[in-house]
């Protein structure tokens, strides 16, 4: 045990002191936030609003369209559009496309003349496009949009949806439906997901649960991607530096490998804890900011026991995959070889992640039961079951037992392969050889 701790200590201290660790701890959040910030910055670049003229031959649509477009733009002031002098409006938040609409009378002149005038204005860059609503627009539902840039699908879609809503409103008005009824008709519904037998306080529980499970799964995935290779490298380290034989005269291969695995894992947890704390502080700051603006953000209502399960299954998932990396490390002689052999691991990981969906649809099915017992898929599958229809405790305990026993068995097998491989002077093991080595060692 003392020797095990000595190995863990060396592994952890040497790595936590390394420049790589410090740099990556700082750099990753910076890169991540850049990934979030850069698109937001690009999207917030202001483009001038699109100047659109509406030729309303039906004579009843213009005000509805203007209202529909300004609803899109929330408080976008469009009061001056009639003057034909577009002015900058307040920044719309939700829509990519902004419009300045103006009405062009359809009765003063013949249509061809109006078209000619508008084309003229477009050439003079006073206008970006115009919509012609024929007299039978409300019954036929067909309109024409002449514009300079037919590839601008965002504007086209926004405009189409606004005209669509305007037409619906006008048709209802024509059908003598009063304002109140119209509002009632379009009132959105709310579907609350409530657990059977659960009290009122449990409502929306599994939604928050899903989000957290997804988060746990994602962090697990990230941790395995980042630290799997480090585990592999750590296992190979003694082979590459030819220290293995000196160490094996002092410690058992199993102790050495377990010590290295735990040392690297503590490093992973340290890094995740630093990031978690930073993220937590950031989130608290954000919640505080929202609260000061009057938005109420609530902490998801999840039973405390579930957090313990989240922790345990996260560790299980991490260790199951980390030990496979260790197993690969025991068979190869260089990190490059290991990288190639490790590819299928990622595949298994991704597949187990997709089980999220079938399991969440029928958490009580035999399929869900079995995948939550198989160690490779258990972490995600069992967590999904816990937040949906919590299975009996014995199933959770059994899943954990099977999982952690598997970790030990894999490490035991890996240490035997490692030792024989070392005795063979760094020969790389083929799979059948590895199996023979496990038996004979």
């Amino acid at each position, binding site marked *: 045990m003392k020797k095990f701790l*000595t190995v863990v200590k060396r592994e952890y201290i040497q790595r936590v002191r390394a420049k790589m660790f410090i740099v990556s701890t700082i750099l990753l959040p910076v890169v991540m936030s850049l990934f979030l910030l850069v698109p937001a910055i690009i999207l917030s670049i202001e483009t001038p609003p699109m100047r659109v003229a509406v030729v309303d031959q039906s004579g009843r649509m213009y005000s509805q369209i203007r209202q529909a477009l300004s609803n899109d733009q929330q408080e976008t002031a469009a009061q001056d559009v009639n003057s034909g002098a577009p002015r900058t409006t307040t920044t719309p938040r939700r829509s990519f496309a902004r419009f300045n609409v103006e009405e062009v009378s359809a009765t003063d002149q013949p249509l061809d003349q109006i078209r000619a005038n508008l084309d003229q204005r477009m050439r003079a860059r006073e206008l970006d496009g115009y919509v012609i609503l024929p007299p039978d627009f409300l019954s036929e539902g067909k309109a024409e949009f002449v514009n300079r840039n037919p590839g601008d699908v965002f504007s086209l879609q926004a405009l189409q949806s606004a005209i669509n809503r305007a037409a619906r409103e006008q048709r209802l008005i024509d059908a003598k439906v009063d304002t109140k009824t119209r509002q009632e008709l379009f009132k959105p519904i709310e579907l609350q997901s409530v657990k059977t037998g659960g009290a009122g306080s449990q409502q929306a529980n599994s939604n928050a649960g899903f989000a957290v499970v997804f988060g746990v799964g994602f962090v697990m995935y990230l941790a395995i991607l980042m630290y799997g290779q480090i585990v592999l490298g750590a296992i190979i380290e003694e082979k590459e530096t030819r220290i293995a034989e*000196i160490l*094996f005269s*002092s410690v058992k291969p199993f102790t050495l490998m377990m010590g290295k695995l735990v040392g690297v894992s503590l490093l992973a947890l340290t890094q995740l804890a630093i990031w978690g704390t930073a993220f937590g502080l950031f989130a608290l700051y954000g919640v505080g900011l929202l609260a000061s603006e009057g938005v109420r953000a609530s902490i998801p209502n999840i039973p405390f026991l579930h957090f313990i399960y989240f922790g345990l299954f996260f560790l299980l998932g991490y260790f199951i995959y980390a030990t496979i990396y260790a197993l690969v490390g025991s068979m190869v002689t260089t990190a490059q070889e290991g990288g190639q052999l490790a590819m299928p691991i990622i595949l298994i990981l991704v597949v187990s992640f997709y089980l999220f969906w079938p399991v969440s649809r029928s958490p009580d099915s035999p399929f869900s039961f079995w995948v939550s017992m198989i160690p490779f898929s258990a972490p995600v599958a069992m967590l999904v079951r816990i937040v949906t229809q919590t299975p009996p405790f014995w199933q959770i305990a059994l899943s954990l037992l099977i999982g952690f026993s598997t970790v030990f068995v894999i490490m035991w097998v890996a240490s035997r392969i490692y030792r024989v491989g070392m*005795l063979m002077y760094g020969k790389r093991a083929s799979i059948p050889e590895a199996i023979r080595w496990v038996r004979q060692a």
Partner: protein
Amino acid sequence: MATNETTVKLDGVSKSFGEFTAVSELSLDVRAGRVFGLLGPNGAGKTTTIRMIVNITAPDSGAILLFGRHIDSSLQDRIGYLPEERGLYKKMRVADQLRFFAEIKNMRGKQVESKIDEWLARVKLPEWKNKRSMELSKGMQQKIQFITAVIHDPDLLILDEPFSGLDPVNVELMKEIVLDLKRAGKTIIFSTHQMEVAEKICDDICLLNRSRKVFEGSLREIKSSFGRNSVAVRCEGGNGVLDDPTLVSKLVRHADEAQVLLAAGADAQTLLKRLIDSGAAIGKFEMVEPSLNDIFITKVTEPA
């Protein structure tokens, strides 16, 4: 120390890897407080034998006793092992590295620090204490590796080709350290195929060839059992005599003299007489002890 005590005893030990037999039916005694040379050509089974002694692999059959007990992992802490395949953690500082190797042998506390300083001074590398091992030259790394094997003050020290890669000055320094350890009562198993080195520091030797023991005993006994049948000759002419197989079983010509191994039944007097009769001008004719190298080559090339 008591010279009749046995530190390591092997009794009918065999080990094979699949088809390949690495060690067969090997029995030997390593006496306490002596330097035991485990000699043999490459692939003779030296390293496998050592690995069984330090409990890295288990023998297929036979028994190994260490300090009078069957080997287990608690005895490992009393052994210091410097394998032929050895290295250091590249990025670790020398002192951290030595501390790790001491702790992995269950050595704790303040004595670790004083041992680190003591040994670094002894191999003349104290100023490298806080350097990373990748900054050290190959010879310096060799010396640090040697310290990793002895820092926990083991009763049994096993050195596999410890001087390879060292310059003559450092070989001399390390040889002195090994002999000091012997004087301090440690038992040392010394594995090498460099006979000149073995000849200078071993008390007892065991020669292995093709997984079997060829002979075992004290260096003195072995040399005298070979008898004085070796002659150093410097002469001009007389070539026909030296090539006569009834007189000479083996002839090795050096720069200006020849090493002659007498054939069975021939004696030095006859050889000298024949040389004089043939009219050769003799500058030197001296009976010499066979070198370990000669014994080694004779035994290894002997048909089984």
